[in-house]
């Protein structure tokens, strides 16, 4: 009876393949709005001193991250948390590490008005945008000429929806292509499930669909710092939510170092090791870590989006 139960668990763990889905484009997309969003995304004039654009911290040709543990805002100010990728964000349940933005539109206003990021006010942006001739036809076609908070964030959000990375080896494997993954990657995939990584990193984004406590089994180092970010607690004001963060997506994780909300871990091997210990309470063998890292590498997809290679 016990054995059956255990076997059932293992089987369900393996069968959890059903919890993974390949990346598919978000539809429908409003092309004029996405075009406007693309131009805004790359425009440093969104920031107060016109030095920082969205692309500064989320360069699209670098998988949407700048490779810094925390990004630099206007005037070289250090940011608060590690900048997550802008790719595949349409599949996340919320945005920001603490999930305070329920939609991409709500998220877009954040960096613009964050003092250590772009340090601006939306009114200023509206002011100069309204006078800018190069934007007028774009705004006309996308929003009938309306330049306001709604249209600006809406355009940015629409653009972000187009940013996806389909075609990874893992997605092809999910599609039935058995040879898409090599032996090491396949072994890594099995470990990914049996070790329990899949419990949180599942779904179309292999993550991004729930909140979890960082250091749920064994507390993490950052808790030592009294000024450490409290995560979800900032939104719900519930002690039980302290140090709960949105589980990040593992897609393209090989390319989006450094890791964790504070960007404290620079290598994927170390990240895997720490995750296993702090989140699963397991000590992994090196061989197992290698396999897992190999598997995570198979999650790299093609960079796609409006106006960039491969996009519409």
């Amino acid at each position, binding site marked *: 009876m016990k054995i059956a139960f255990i076997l059932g668990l293992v089987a369900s763990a393996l069968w959890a393949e059903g919890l993974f889905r390949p990346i598919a484009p978000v539809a429908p997309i409003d092309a004029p709005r996405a075009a406007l969003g693309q131009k805004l995304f790359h425009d440093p004039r969104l920031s107060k001193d016109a030095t920082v654009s969205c692309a500064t911290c989320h360069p699209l040709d670098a998988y949407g991250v700048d490779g810094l543990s925390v990004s630099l805002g206007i005037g070289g100010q250090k940011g608060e948390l590690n900048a997550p990728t802008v790719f595949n964000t349409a599949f996340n*349940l919320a945005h920001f590490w603490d999930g305070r933005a*329920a939609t991409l539109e709500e998220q877009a206003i954040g960096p613009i008005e964050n003092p250590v990021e772009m340090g601006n006010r939306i009114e200023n942006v509206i002011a100069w945008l309204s006078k800018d001739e190069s934007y007028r036809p774009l705004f006309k076609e996308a929003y009938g000429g309306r330049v306001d908070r709604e249209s600006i964030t809406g355009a940015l959000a629409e653009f972000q929806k187009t940013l996806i990375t389909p075609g990874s080896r893992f997605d092809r494997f999910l599609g039935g292509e058995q040879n898409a993954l090599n032996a090491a990657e396949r072994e890594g995939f099995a470990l990914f499930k049996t070790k*329990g990584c899949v419990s949180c990193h599942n779904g179309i984004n292999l993550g991004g669909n*729930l909140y979890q406590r960082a250091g749920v089994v064994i507390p993490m180092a950052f808790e030592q710092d009294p000024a450490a970010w409290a995560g979800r607690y900032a939104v719900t004001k*519930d002690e039980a939510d302290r140090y709960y963060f949105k589980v990040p997506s593992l897609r393209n994780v090989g390319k989006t170092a450094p890791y964790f909300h504070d960007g404290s871990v620079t290598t994927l091997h170390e990240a895997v090791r720490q995750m296993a210990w702090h989140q699963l309470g397991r000590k992994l063998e090196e061989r197992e870590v290698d396999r897992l890292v190999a598997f995570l590498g198979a999650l790299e997809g093609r960079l796609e989006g409006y106006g960039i290679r491969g996009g519409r």
Partner: protein
Amino acid sequence: MNLLSKRIMIPALVALMGLGVVAYYLFFQGFLAQQRFERLTTQTLSDLRLANLELDTLFVGGFSYIDYDKSVKDLQHFEQTLEALLQQYNQLGDDGDGLGLLGEALQRDFTAKSRIVERYKAINAVQNNSLRYLHELYQQLPLKLLGEGAQENAVRLEMGRFLAGISAANLREIGNGGWTKDRLEQLRLPPGHPAEETVALFLLHAKMFVDGAKSVEALGRDNAALGLAAKINKAAEQTDRYFRQRQAVWMLLGNLAFAMGALFFVAFVLVFIREEQLKKRLERMNRELESRVNEETAKRRHQEQMLIQQSKLAAMGEMIGAIAHQWRQPLNTLAINIQDLEDAYNYGELDKTYIQNLIARCMGLIKHMSQTINDFRNFFRQSKEKSRFDVYAAVRETLELVQDQYKNHQISVVLSCEPFELSAYKPQGGGIVELSGCEPGAFVSEGYLNEFKQAVLNLLSNAKDAILERREQEPGRTQGTVAVIFTRQGGSIEVGIEDDGSGVPPELMERIFEPYFSTKEEGKGTGIGLYMAKTILEVNMGGALEVSNGAQGARFVIRLAGAQPSDPAK
């Protein structure tokens, strides 16, 4: 302006009916819109109920992988449906205020639920992992502890018991299943023991698992306590009630509009019927009235005829006096002539000449007396048909009948065809005076000759009586004058009979033409005379008779339509 006249009523009622129809149409549109909106809201609430059920299934499943992507979609779906519902509630305006607040409460509850769901997911993930690891760790043990000491076996037994105690059925009770902190602490091996780390990990995860189980149970309770399903049902009930009420109002309005329209229609029909009824009644009454009037008129005429006869008889009575008067003198003269015969014989004057003269004188007198009879007889014969007659001549002939009386009473009658001032005239002892200016045949009219003469006679008789009455009041007066003035006014003839008698008191002016009205003493007058004269002149001859007071006495004016003279009638 008669408001009930057809010309106003029909358009007004048609307009009102039209309004009723328009109102009903508008109501119907509004009612349909309301129904559509109601259906939409009911659908939204149903969707919300289903979305909530989906979320609740998370808490039911004991222990399996939860599709987190689906849970995210479910939460988003719920949120969007709730958003839509709130928008619909907002469209209800002030009326749905209670519902608006209900919707906001649902939003707050949803936020709480989504937090519960997220935490549940997090704990669920850890539970899954811990359970798997616990089994793994337990599997690892026998390899290391076979054949070892009692403590190891005891620990291994406890671990087994712990795992056995976990099943889908009592997952929620694992926290209360006797695995207290102290009992759990038994799961330890001394430091340095080869299996120490394994067991330590087991203990760690076992503790986590127990805490997690407690949390999961608490979260399930919290979700149940939220009672979102019941609240959604309540919202559905309240919404339904709201719409029922509105619908009742709509139905009422619609029925009112329709009733108004129907009422107006019925009122219109009733009024129309009533009007027809009234019209018929009116016609009937008119006909009745007409026949009554005809009846009465015939009676009246008959009475008039009788009155005419009576007045004739009365006049006749008066005429007897006149005849007697006219005959007295000739009879006296005849008597004297015959008595003189004997004296003539005694004096030897009885010769042929004397006898011839006597015969001539007497025959003349007799002829005169006979003429008097003829005159009076003619006078009282009824004129059967209208004829043309000379008004002047008729008056003249009438005068001859009464001239002796007038002479006796010292009353002069002046006939004039030019304006005549009665007060300036000096009477000369009675008799008829014809002034110049009257052309023969100048005053010709058409009518009943004898009746006309009777009217004139009556007026002359009244004039005489008035003069005599004045003489009684003013003893110094010995003379009296009656002026008969003939004039032409356009196509009509006017005969004015003016006297210098006592006149007509102004307050009686209107009444003197009434039948049986007399100013004379009892027995001295019938009161019919003037009434008859007026009737004859106005009714029979289509003329007019007016009275006024002249400078001296009364003034009667006869007006007749003139006719072309053909042969002067007699």
